């Protein structure tokens, strides 16, 4: 898929998101609500005694805001594949000379681009001033953080893609989506930074990609991860991008021969 086609698909889903204005305002409110709740919670907890997970009270507030802003920016419609399989409209995607994976990614990118520009970035900027958060922006840290954001985004996209492909086997994918949300909320780092998990859980976390979705980019962007640690985390992230990319390819090859077009 060339850039023009990718851009076209992205632009179409970006435009589509603009049309839902009520949804947008509700989502902005929702985003702020989450940030208020979590910053208040962390401040109260850290007022008792700072230091857990290597965070100061100000540090954990910065983390909560950054992680939530990333989560908002990474908004994706993870139901599209299942819906397309369920109603058979996947047939019209497959008659196009474009890769199914790339087409989904382009559409997803357009969707997320809207939520990044319209919600993620404004909420981040507003919250930084509102909570007087001090984020040490360095050129190196920001560059590594942006790289980590891109990889985190790819991991989340591929996670949704793989869960979406389950629909080729089982039409009712909602229970699997629930399981995914549970794991993502618990282990992804958007609610609880990974540092706060007991040491005994760390090897288990390393076997899963979730922490590299929100935790890794947030920790690098707010300067919580030391430069050496940041490089290790980026390497792990890159490995996960590779693993999930390979899984997406294998899973798609298995899925396409399983496809049944519903409704003729």
């Amino acid at each position, binding site marked *: 898929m*060339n850039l*023009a*086609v990718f851009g*076209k*698909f992205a632009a*179409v889903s970006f435009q*589509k998101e603009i*049309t839902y204005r009520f949804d947008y305002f509700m989502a902005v409110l929702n985003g702020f609500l989450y940030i208020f709740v979590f910053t208040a919670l962390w401040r109260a907890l850290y007022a008792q005694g700072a230091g857990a997970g290597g965070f100061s009270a100000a540090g954990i507030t910065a983390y909560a805001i950054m992680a939530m802003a990333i989560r908002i920016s990474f908004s994706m419609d993870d139901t599209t594949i299942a819906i397309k399989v369920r109603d*058979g*409209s*996947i*047939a*019209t995607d*497959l*008659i*196009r*000379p*474009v*890769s199914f994976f790339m087409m989904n990614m382009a559409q997803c990118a357009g969707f997320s681009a809207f939520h990044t520009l319209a919600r993620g970035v404004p909420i981040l900027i507003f919250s930084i001033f509102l909570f007087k958060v001090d984020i040490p922006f360095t050129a190196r840290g920001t560059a590594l953080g942006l790289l980590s954001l891109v990889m985190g985004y790819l991991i989340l996209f591929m996670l949704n893609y793989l869960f979406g492909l389950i629909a080729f*086997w*089982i*039409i*009712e*994918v909602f*229970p*699997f989506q*629930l399981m995914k949300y549970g794991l993502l909320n618990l282990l992804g780092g958007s609610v609880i930074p990974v540092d706060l998990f007991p040491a005994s859980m760390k090897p288990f976390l390393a076997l899963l990609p979730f922490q590299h979705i929100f935790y890794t980019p947030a920790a690098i962007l707010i300067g919580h991860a030391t430069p050496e640690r940041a490089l290790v985390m980026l390497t792990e992230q890159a490995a996960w991008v590779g693993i999930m990319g390979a899984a997406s390819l294998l899973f798609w090859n298995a899925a*396409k*021969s399983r*496809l*049944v*077009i519903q*409704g*003729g």
Partner: protein
Amino acid sequence: MRYHLGMAYTIEAQNLVKTFTVNESGKGLLGAVKALFSTKKRIVHAVENVSFGIRQGEFVGYVGENGAGKSTTIKILTGILVPTGGVARVNGVVPYENRRDNSKNIGVVFGQRTQLWWDLPVRESFEILRVIYRVSKGDFDAMMARLTKGLGLDGLMEMPVRKLSLGQRMRCDIAASLVHRPTVLFLDEPTIGLDVLAKENIRSFLRELNGKDGTTIILTTHDMNDIEQLCKRLIILDKGRVIHDGPTEELKKRFPHDKIIEVDFESELASLPLVPELEPIRREGKKMWLRHAHDSSGLALAIGKLASLYPVKDLSVREPSVEIIIRSIYEKTAALPGYAPVEKAAK
């Protein structure tokens, strides 16, 4: 039949088989998880052993009853479905192995669903397709001018797709399948649900596309007028197998002495058969179609017998239509016990 291995075909199907395994999934999370490990499966044989070869420039009707495997074959040839067995090639490309290469050369229309972008104006959908298929601006404008004229798209371009009527949408869908000038066009029930005028517009456009451009067209339909007016060749499918393949004209010659008698009775009749020489093939209320399968010398006598025994209001004698011939091919295996198949045929 008409398929010979090794000849230069634009579309070829060799012993195509498609078997679906349908998992019977239970309810809720537990049911869904169980379904992962369960062995409760239902096997559906959609296409059992289909072979044919179609040359460049042919206009082929691909017909069969619902569930005969028409759409499944089309979806294999367009690369959407992977066959369980056999080989398919379109322009020498195996569609399900090189789906993207194949889709550059083909146009596809599914009458039952649109390929346009539902919320966008029609013009936007065409623009997206132009980018996807990498059509140059000049080629695109020339093709659009032609499609707009040929399919009467004036005034539709600025409308959102969801506001189009079925007939308007279908014309736009056909135009959308041709933006990249494919050499092969697959039409899966393109006239379904359309009124006579809309069907006629589409037919004359397709006739021109096939005649002037030499586009190979494969058409599935339930409308026998589509077949009679457009398709020079007919492939008939039944229960996943090809049961007939040949020129549409030849099919008509298959029963040269057959005559179809359309009878309007005064009242609905209760018993069948009426007269031994006349085979009932279709019934709609007081109207009935009967076939006289013998030499035409006995025809007058049989009609006389019918008129003397039953209250005939009106009667006409015709050559068998393609629809009736196709029906008789289907029903060769299933004879006509009483009313049952006649009722089925009357839909």
